């Protein structure tokens, strides 16, 4: 049944493809290039339909390709022309800050000014934006305070143009990828037009955002991945290395780049598995294959990624708004920071005023403030937390067990095993712990501020222990790791790393842990140290080495990312909204009089994509059941392989968002959307619905004409008000243009 229906049509289609559709990469892969293994099985699929032929592909195909190279080149030029013209059209409008330009434009300026800042994304995207701005004559002086600010006569077009240029490459890459996977010009051109005329893709490419840069690298990585397939030739190495470079680029822009790394990783594993089963290859050959991939796809991207950070840290050497997020050791690198060249007494002494920092990375300072734990959370005493910012509430005074008055003469040093009382300088309460559950980590005890002016009780006493030290060792400022053991209960002062709720000002919980294992969470060091009776010694603060900086900045970034929780009253987009184009994103303008831009996919494109996903799964199911029953469907292999790769790409770029706790936006779907468009292209032309393709193209372009104001901007009344030009286009209630 299935056989009778499908095979003949697919055959003709395949033949047509072979004759008319040379792949364009031949133009620079030079003439000798035989077709790869993968390619072989695909093209061979058309001819014989099995795994056996691997010899007759190259020469015959090459001839066919040579003769009609130009049509595909023409098509490629057409795609390029269209995509550049749609992306660059009205690039300078609106002449004010739109949506997240306020962040990324600002960060571009920071690079130009070399001031240090903190962001949850890795630096490459913003570095490129800064570079583009620098090259186009932008001087970094525009403050980018809030969306809607007028640019006046700043050179902002360079940054926008750069993003739009990278965005324009997406349809071209899609064209080449689909051509490579399906060997069909029609498929490729469909995928490309889907992207060219998608209002969403246009809008997101036209502004100073990370997404066009990210998507550029993702698509480039996929393109080079599907291209390296002839072992150890020069072009194979070229594409392999390019894959690695693009992977590093994708990860360097946003952590979402991880998904494409997984895609490439899975594909590579599959590839190696296939090679392993090839008995004509010796184990040495396989080892070579493995090592080549390990180098180009693991080692090279890693080196590049680290290099990006190295450049980031070298360029940003001035103190700026990001200082507070990092440790003091880190801050000492920054010109203009108060820790840049510090001097203080070397050994901790009684009577000193100190700040105490947790040794866990981004662990925070021991902190207290004039607020009590709320009712129902342990004893209703003063809160003690860990705080990431520098603050006078981080100051503590070290006292002996009993006396409160300052001694005359040289103060005694605090030594390993001494009993101390830590008094909070601002509130004069003692650091205190008792047998109540800690607020979040219920297995630990609560730590509070207790007593007043130094009078407290026996629960205020802590024993100082220098890690790795012996009785009598002094405590070195900055360099000793110290633990504070509670005298009465035997527990150790501990920072759990959990964020307290609103009542705790979203600072970090401090507890007393009854488990005495030495971990960075229970180790502290003395950082600022003020004692007028002791001589100050210039301490070159232990300069952190590069790897420490790298690790610290990553941990801070991850904290920041998971800290982006949806707030009340803020609009929160759900992942299931995205593929159905349920709700867009307002880029600019709210009122009728303003110039409005609304990020929304071209509904026809998106709904076709959605339908094609379902159709693809059905087709694969039917085809594989038929094959399993022994019908030979020659082309199902191509359908499953090429389409499977794109399907996997879509899934990898979409499914993880369902498990994410952070705040999500509509634009997170765009990388996945690229994959689903390519899948549509690949698939539509394996079905025999060619006339359907043509029709859908026509509808899509009419639609593009209808919806283009969303991207290029609109003014006038809102769509739900009478008299709006867009009123008829409000097909879903949830669209808010």
């Amino acid at each position, binding site marked *: 049944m299935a056989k009778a229906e499908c095979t003949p049509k697919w055959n003709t289609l395949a033949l047509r493809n072979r004759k008319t559709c040379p792949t364009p990469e031949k133009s620079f892969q030079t003439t000798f290039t035989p077709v790869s293994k993968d390619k072989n099985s695909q093209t061979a699929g058309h001819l014989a339909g099995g795994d056996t032929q691997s010899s007759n592909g190259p020469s015959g195909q090459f001839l066919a390709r040579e003769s009609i190279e130009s049509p595909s080149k023409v098509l490629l030029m057409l795609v390029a022309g269209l995509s550049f013209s749609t992306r660059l059209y009205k690039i300078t409008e609106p002449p004010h800050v739109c949506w997240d330009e306020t962040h990324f434009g600002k960060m571009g300026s920071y690079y130009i000014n070399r001031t240090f800042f903190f962001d949850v994304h890795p630096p490459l995207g913003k570095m490129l934006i800064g570079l583009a701005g620098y090259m186009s004559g932008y001087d970094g002086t525009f403050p980018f305070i809030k969306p809607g600010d007028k640019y006046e006569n700043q050179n902002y077009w360079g940054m926008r143009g750069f993003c739009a240029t990278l965005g324009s490459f997406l349809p071209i890459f899609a064209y080449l990828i689909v051509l490579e996977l399906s060997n069909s010009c029609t498929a490729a051109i469909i995928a490309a037009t889907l992207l060219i005329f998608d209002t969403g893709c246009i809008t997101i490419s036209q502004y100073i955002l990370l997404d066009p840069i990210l998507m550029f690298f993702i698509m480039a990585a996929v393109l080079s991945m599907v291209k390296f397939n002839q072992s150890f030739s020069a072009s194979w190495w070229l594409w392999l290395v390019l894959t690695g470079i693009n992977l590093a680029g994708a990860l360097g822009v946003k952590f979402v780049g991880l998904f494409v790394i997984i895609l490439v990783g899975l594909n590579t594993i599959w590839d190696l598995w296939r090679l392993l089963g090839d008995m004509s290859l010796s184990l040495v050959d396989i080892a070579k294959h493995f090592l080549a991939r390990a180098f180009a796809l693991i080692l090279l991207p890693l080196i590049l990624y680290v290099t990006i950070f190295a450049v980031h840290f070298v360029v940003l050497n001035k103190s700026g708004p990001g200082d507070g997020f990092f440790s003091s050791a880190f801050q000492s690198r920054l010109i203009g920071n108060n820790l840049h060249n510090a001097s203080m007494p070397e050994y901790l002494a009684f009577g000193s005023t100190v700040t105490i920092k947790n040794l866990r990375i981004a662990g925070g300072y021991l902190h207290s403030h004039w607020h009590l734990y709320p009712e129902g959370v342990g004893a209703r005493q003063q809160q003690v937390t860990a705080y990431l910012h520098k603050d006078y509430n981080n100051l503590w005074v070290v006292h002996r067990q009993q006396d409160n008055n300052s001694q005359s003469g040289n103060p005694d040093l605090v030594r390993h095993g001494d009993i101390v009382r830590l008094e909070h300088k601002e509130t004069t309460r003692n650091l205190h712990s008792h047998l109540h559950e800690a607020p979040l*980590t219920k297995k630990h005890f609560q730590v509070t501020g207790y007593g007043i002016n130094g009078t407290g009780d026996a629960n205020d006493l802590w024993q100082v222990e220098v890690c790795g030290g012996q009785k009598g060792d002094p405590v070195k400022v900055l360099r000793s790791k110290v633990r504070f053991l509670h005298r009465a209960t035997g527990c150790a002062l501990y920072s759990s790393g959990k964020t307290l709720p609103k009542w705790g000002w979203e600072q970090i919980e401090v507890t007393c842990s009854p488990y005495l294992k030495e971990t960075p969470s229970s180790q502290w060091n003395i950082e600022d140290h003020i004692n007028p009776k002791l001589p100050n010694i210039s301490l070159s603060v232990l300069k952190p080495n590069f790897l420490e900086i790298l690790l610290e900045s990553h941990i801070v970034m991850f904290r920041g990312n998971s800290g982006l929780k949806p707030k009340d009253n803020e609009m929160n987009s759900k992942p299931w909204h995205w593929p159905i184009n349920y709700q867009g994103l307002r880029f600019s303008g709210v009122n009728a009089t303003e110039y409005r831009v609304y990020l929304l996919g071209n509904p026809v494109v998106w709904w076709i994509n959605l339908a094609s996903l379902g159709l693809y799964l059905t087709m694969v199911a039917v085809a594989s*059941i038929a094959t399993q029953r022994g019908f030979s469907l020659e082309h199902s292999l191509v359908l499953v392989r090429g389409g499977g790769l794109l399907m996997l790409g879509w899934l990898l770029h979409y499914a993880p968002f369902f498990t994410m706790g952070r705040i999500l936006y509509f634009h997170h779907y765009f990388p996945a959307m690229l994959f689903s468009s390519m899948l549509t292209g690949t698939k539509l032309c394996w079905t025999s619905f060619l006339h359907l393709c043509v029709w859908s193209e026509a509808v899509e372009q009419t639609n593009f004409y209808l919806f283009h104001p969303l991207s290029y901007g609109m003014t006038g009344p809102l769509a739900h008000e009478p008299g709006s030009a867009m009123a008829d286009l409000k097909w879903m209630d949830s669209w808010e243009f």
Partner: protein
Amino acid sequence: GWEMLQLPLVVTAQVDLLLVLVSLLAFWTRLSHLSYPNAVVFDEVYYGQFVSLYMKRVFFIDDSGPPLGHMILAFGAYLGGFDGNFVWNRIGAEYPSTVNVWSLRLLPALCGALCVPLGYLLTLELKFSHLSALGAAVLLLLENSLIVQSRFMLLESVLIFFVLLAFFSYLRFHNAPSSSWSRYNWLILSGVSCGAAVGVKYMGLFSYLLLLVVASLHTWKLIGDKTISHMNVCVQSVHRVLCLVVVPVLLYVFWFYVHLSFLNRSGPHDQLMSSAFQASLQGGLSRITRGQPLEVAYGSQVTLRSSVSQPIPCWLHSHKVNYPIRYDNGRGSSHQQQVTCYPFKDVNNWWIIKDPGRQQLVVDTPPRPVRHGDVIQLVHGMTSRFLNSHDVAAPMSPHTQEVSGYIDFNVSMPAQNLWRVDISNREAESEVWKTILSEVRLIHVNTSAVLKLSGVSLPDWGFRQLEVVADKLFKAHSSSLEWTVEEHRYGTSQEQKEREAELHSPTHIDVDRKISFWAKFVELQWKMLTVKQEESEHKYSSSPLEWITMETNIAYWLHSSTNAQIHLIGNPVSWGVANLSLLAYQLLAVVYLLRRRRGLKDVPDGVWDQFVCLGCVCVGGWLVNFVPFLLMDKTLFLYHYLPALCYLYLLSPALLEHAHTHLLRYAHQLQHVTHQRALCVGALAVLLSIFLTYRTFCPLTYGSPELSAHQLQGLKWRDTWDILYRRR
């Protein structure tokens, strides 16, 4: 007939004595002294309250799992004649003599005991020897944590029982000759057990999905078998889908059907449900709303309930206090009368629906119903203020509009008190606004903002009631915009004084309103999945990675005066064996796979299939029951690991057998025998140490005998375990 009588009357029975033996031991370890301790142990305090509610047939919602588990526990209680009169308020509380503790704990203990023979049978169905099966059974038998978890009114043992039963019966089906039709009984049993497993705890879903994967792999092979006709393949596939997909789904719904038909009285969780749902329960809302007029008309007196039950269910409310002129942060307000949402029944929740074109506040005869799209005014019953909104920022959500009871201060702030009725669940355009059934949005005519519950609590000046705003940028579907009429009557009093008296009087009249089972099922299921309880860390909660090495334990019970105590602590030796075999299997599988890919077949194909099947069931079972917990941010406990652990106990002896028969083959002939002997001796030694460890931990498993503090200290094998010492 003579021939018949001449034949001897013979019964031939084959009894697997090993199976009988382990079963007896299992019953002995699980069921002896079941009613000790005679006190509430750990989560009994949690499940107990639901058992009580079942006995009293009072409706409740428990988001921790579907109702079958609770029903099984309640059935046990019913058998023991429990009347539901016990307050489950703290762990360690003594049961009174009227409560039959033995019967409360009987069913979980039975299930727990049956897991042991099931483990034995399952290993046989995986095509390993009786010796392996015995090994698996012994591992399950002597696992202290499984014993503890079985002996109390808890659900894990029931879950494990159904999961093992599902796999056993599926494999029984699969291994039976394809000609026998009786094997489909096994398939049906498998489907039923799957339905039961998912019905006991959502966690059963993981094992169910795994079983589906295994079954589809087998079906896939079946489809590829070209010796079978197309028709036959179709029929067989359909059978499998029916038994393994349709049956469990139907059963799952059936548990809810039983649950809902049992629990027909209103109770503490009513308020989380919609008004229509509440009206279907005896007592509670239905007593109030019985016989209310259905159609809301001009002049109706109504209370409007917000459709969201988060943070708390509440009714549109107003009272004779105005918004403060200036808020704490310096912003100004309209200083008009407050409109809030109030979570309690109150006479100030009454509103009167008024036709803007007419003055009167009573219902005409015949009543003129309000329809979708009509414009109305809402008059607050007790203060006669009109519900109003205007372009003033709301107190807590400044991006939205304030909603007030309009007071004319003569400050050029005109009344904007027209609201359009938008029935969002309408079936026709001119649908009438119905009590309880219609979900209505009130759209402010002047600004087209929608009346909305913002969910934020007002500060002290608003008596901590919930803020109500009008929001312009509404999403298409958000239940915070929707309101239903709950209490309703036709107003008859012209005068304000009379009207106030009328509002104070209770509503009455008699008609019963039913909603269908499906509507109730969908609503209940949705609520169970979305009701969010404040998750906080528990003293004994743990993270999944701690389970593998058993870094953590749970203290279940401590005697009120002595050191006798019960802990959830596994058998550390078996635990180690389990981890070791997991690791060994994975290593072995990787080596086999790579070598087979290069054409080197270490074991014959039949053995390889057996090895793969073992991995699919046991390692797969461990993975699906463990990995998902890494992604959850729920409060998790050690007992969540027990199902995964059971799979590993099935794996260990089977893997040992595999090594014994197939791996040692490669050794030199002479060494071969010595190796095999060494392996046997090693296995025996491990079994012995497992038994000894079991004995060692018995006092913490059964809660007797009491140990001295010193002995307890000796049992603290890990620093991170919390073992309690009573100070004397």
